[in-house]
């Protein structure tokens, strides 16, 4: 809501076994930013912010629909 470049999905992953597999979701909540920046658990606001900043600064384009971990 604070920046038009940022979009956010909440995914209830039970119905999407393919996504759980693609993103290696084993513990929840798991947050994935631009396919590459991952953290597990309900971290503080600052942790999400750090991952958003790193992902935005990352020159690698996010692979379409895929994942590199």
């Amino acid at each position, binding site marked *: *809501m*604070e*920046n*038009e*470049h*940022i*979009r*956010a*999905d*909440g*995914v*209830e*992953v*039970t*119905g*999407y076994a393919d*996504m*759980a597999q693609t*993103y290696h*979701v084993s513990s*929840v*909540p*798991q*947050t*994935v*930013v*631009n*396919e590459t920046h991952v953290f597990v658990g309900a971290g503080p*606001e*600052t942790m*999400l*912010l750090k991952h*958003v*900043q790193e*992902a*935005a*600064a990352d020159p690698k384009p*996010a692979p379409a629909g895929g994942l590199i971990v």
Partner: protein
Amino acid sequence: MALITDDVAAQLKAEFANMASPVRLAVFSAALADPESEQVKRLVEELAALEPKITALSYNFVLDKEKVAELGIQRIPAIAVLGAEKDYGIRLYGLPSGYEFGTLIDTILDVSSEKSGLSDATKATLAEVKEPVHIQVFSTPT
């Protein structure tokens, strides 16, 4: 039978009574491909029936290709939580049951208030982001 019980409906009505701006809930389903997605459509329509400021917009994931593309919907069931005019890029995928039902309600209230609830420091830092960022939060119903 209604998905939202009378007790819950009464609580929700009280919460929605303070909504500032209208909210549109664009729900994407497909009865044939995913019968479960019809449940989400029903849930969204029941929510909209509780509060005049909430509008349900029902789309078929297979047939309404233009809307699917416009809102960038990837799979179903999906709910795009939209402001009266603005799309903040918020999408909820899957069944909004258990804890996720609370997430849906909180998201509606946040969008209605046009306030993210983030700290001023976080907002200032986020304002500097110029590149596309896509956040995905995975959860399970607990």
